[in-house]
């Protein structure tokens, strides 16, 4: 199984995918596990960049027989004017349109905690699998996230 070089994933997961002997395209996001990783990845808030990359991958696999497995922690859009100026809403809508036209099966697997914008993206999949301890917040801005984390602990 060929894995795109731009994609980084844990080696154990890549081995597991290779062992299934099926043709997959896996798209996922990582927010980071500690503060250093989160700062490096900006908690994966670059929603326009992520969705644009996902669209390119979708289009390249449009007519192939690959199964499309979207392994995702859905990222919420940033409720700011500056984010909208950079085309955040357009990126989400473009992503939905591309995913709706794919002729291969799409299975979205949701891990972790996510927000509203990513929920739209995973909703277009044929099947949505959710981990047992998954939470979805309608607005996942920093203030709400801190509040949610404080409530959970």
């Amino acid at each position, binding site marked *: 199984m060929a894995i795109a070089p731009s994609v980084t994933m844990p080696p154990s*997961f890549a081995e597991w995918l290779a062992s299934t002997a099926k043709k997959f395209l896996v798209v996922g996001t990582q927010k980071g596990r500690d503060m250093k990783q989160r700062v490096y990845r900006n908690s994966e808030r670059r929603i326009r960049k992520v969705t644009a990359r996902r669209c390119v991958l979708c289009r390249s696999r449009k007519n192939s027989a690959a199964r499309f497995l979207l392994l995702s922690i859905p990222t919420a859009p940033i409720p700011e004017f500056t984010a909208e100026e950079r085309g955040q809403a357009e990126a989400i809508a473009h992503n939905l349109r591309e995913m709706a036209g794919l002729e291969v099966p799409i299975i979205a697997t949701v*891990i972790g905690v996510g927000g509203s914008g990513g929920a739209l993206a995973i*909703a277009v999949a044929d099947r949505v699998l959710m981990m047992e301890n998954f939470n979805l917040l309608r607005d996942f801005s920093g203030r709400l996230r801190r509040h949610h984390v404080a409530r959970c602990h």
Partner: protein
Amino acid sequence: MPLRKSWQPKPCALLPLTLANWAASTTIVPEPEGGAHRDYEAAANLLDISLQKHLAELKRLPPADLLVSRYNKFRNIAQFFKTVA
């Protein structure tokens, strides 16, 4: 605009069971005891069972039916009103 100090955010946390009732979710994948982050291998094995099952179902559908069912699924999310007023 600065927020008032007394303002308390009210997160609307939607759990998988709630989402499943709204038809947004198809399957809830069980996690190993303590969460998926405690045991990656067990979590991957549990996920594998669900993936194999759904892939086998989707494999049988021709692409045209796949697109129609995907569209209908998206349109039927969150059916709040079951009867016409």
